[in-house]
């Protein structure tokens, strides 16, 4: 056994979480809702604007992920606690970090496929665009990468929310509340005075997604998503290690 985090057990847990998520009806409903809404709203906009870009997807998807991600993560830990299987899991020779990372990685894998499915839009637009005009692939991939990073960040918050409640619905509501904070704080940054306005802007996900959507890969955005995701995973570990459910 590894002295530190054993990536083999993390991967074992991740695979189990992924297959459990894929087989659950909630994942199916979330995927249908996500792709359905994007298709329904984006397509008329796209043809009306006559613009070869996926900006519409980048603008719409965060609103959907705001609900979809907490719905996907609500059961990750709360369901184990409610059904009692968490007792079994936590008496296996696993570190709390391994449990949290395994669960998160399983979700992240699903999120990767969910966002990966949106590649359909740049491919479609590229095939429809006038020759010579083309699609800005950097901006498109930046948008998709930004959405994936938002998924990871929301997923970490959702995982933490799931560790706080035995009831999945409560975990979902908590997850939405956390996401709401980071979704809207940037939108309302103008309401804060001076320096606080800048802090609010930085804390919100919007500004970071906008940068990536322009095809600009700024280290600060990666640091933002990385550190926020890590922070909520760390909160989840602290919560699990308390063993007070």
């Amino acid at each position, binding site marked *: 056994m590894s002295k530190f985090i054993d990536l083999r057990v993390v991967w*074992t*847990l991740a695979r189990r979480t992924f297959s*459990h998520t894929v087989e659950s009806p909630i994942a199916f409903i979330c995927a249908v809702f996500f792709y359905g809404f994007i298709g329904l709203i984006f397509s008329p906009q796209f043809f009306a604007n006559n613009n070869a870009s996926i900006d519409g997807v980048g603008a719409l998807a965060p609103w959907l992920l705001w609900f979809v991600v907490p719905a996907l993560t609500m059961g990750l830990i709360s369901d184990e606690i409610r059904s009692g299987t968490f*007792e*079994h899991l936590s*008496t296996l*020779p696993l570190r709390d970090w391994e449990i949290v990372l395994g669960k998160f990685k399983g979700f992240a894998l699903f999120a990767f496929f969910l966002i990966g499915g949106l590649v359909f839009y740049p491919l479609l637009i590229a095939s429809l665009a006038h020759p010579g005009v083309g699609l800005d692939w950097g901006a498109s991939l930046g948008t998709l990468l930004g959405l994936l990073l938002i998924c990871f960040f929301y997923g970490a918050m959702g995982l933490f929310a799931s560790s706080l409640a035995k009831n999945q619905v409560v975990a979902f509501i908590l997850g939405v509340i956390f996401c709401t904070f980071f979704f809207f704080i940037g939108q309302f940054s103008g309401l804060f005075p001076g320096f606080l306005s800048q802090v609010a802007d930085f804390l919100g996900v919007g500004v970071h997604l906008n940068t990536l959507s322009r095809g600009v890969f700024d280290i600060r955005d990666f640091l933002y998503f990385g550190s926020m995701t890590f922070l909520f995973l760390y909160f989840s570990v602290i919560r699990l290690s308390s063993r007070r459910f």
Partner: protein
Amino acid sequence: MIRVNRLTKKFGLTVAVDGIDFEIPKGQVVGFLGPNGAGKTTTMRLLTGYLPPDEGEATLMGHDLRTDSLEIRRHLGYLPENNPLPDDIEITDFLHFVGRLRGLHDLEHRMTRVKSVLKACSLESVVGRKLGELSKGFRQRVGLAQAIIHDPDILILDEPTSGLDPNQVQEVRELIQSLKEEKTLLLSTHILHEVQHTCDRVIIINKGKIVADGSPSDLMGAQQDVTRLFVSMKGSQNEIESALRALPGVGRLNAQKSVDGVEDGFMIESESGRDLRESVFHLAVEKRWPILSLRQERLSLEEVFRALTQFDSAGAEAPPHV
């Protein structure tokens, strides 16, 4: 192998485990008894590292529970109460999943272990089925199979026979018997008869405290200051009852009615273990009541359990350990 010293766990104002001490050497099978809410499950959860203790210490295989819980969990197999299992996974996949998390990363070795526990727990007939489709008996066996997949040194089983039919109980008992050769076993159960047959030692816990600790026969012997005598005599039952009550050394006396009505009589509890058989005999001779039946009975473990776990509620001091 397991050493527990003043282990305490509180939930708010409730003291679930109240400074218990015990030691279990290697290869011993210990039955953990107690009424509901006595602290059995909490003690087991403390030993498995699921719950952190508030006070006291415990060492398993020489590893401290507070500082080396991970190492302890590597040597431990645990069947939790109610045996919670995921429903959406096939048996073999589940055993492989637990095996991998238990550190059995070598596929060949893991496959051998899975095959071996499927056989040991008689699960071969249900391979291919998801856990949610299994009967309670099979689920219990899957719980046992996952607990022994890594061939642990210590097995902690919380009510392993709960909810099983008599045939399944017998199978689980045989499985436990086969494991006791090489492992240290701590199991809790409500079936006292099972403890008598399976365990080398019994620890009775009540209200978070150990009220008795010894072999099943020791425990029954320790309660021999209360002996019981069943007497059945021919004659007026009212007169017989009053005469028996008047005998010196008679404690409680209850009229007993047999199912077939052939052996109606009285169950007499003597004070301080006094043998009342001679007095009863002389009484019968004097009154010319023919004795139909006269037998002294040993207390069953169930009665010992009741006597010990009711001590506290009566406000009396708990009996000393034996």
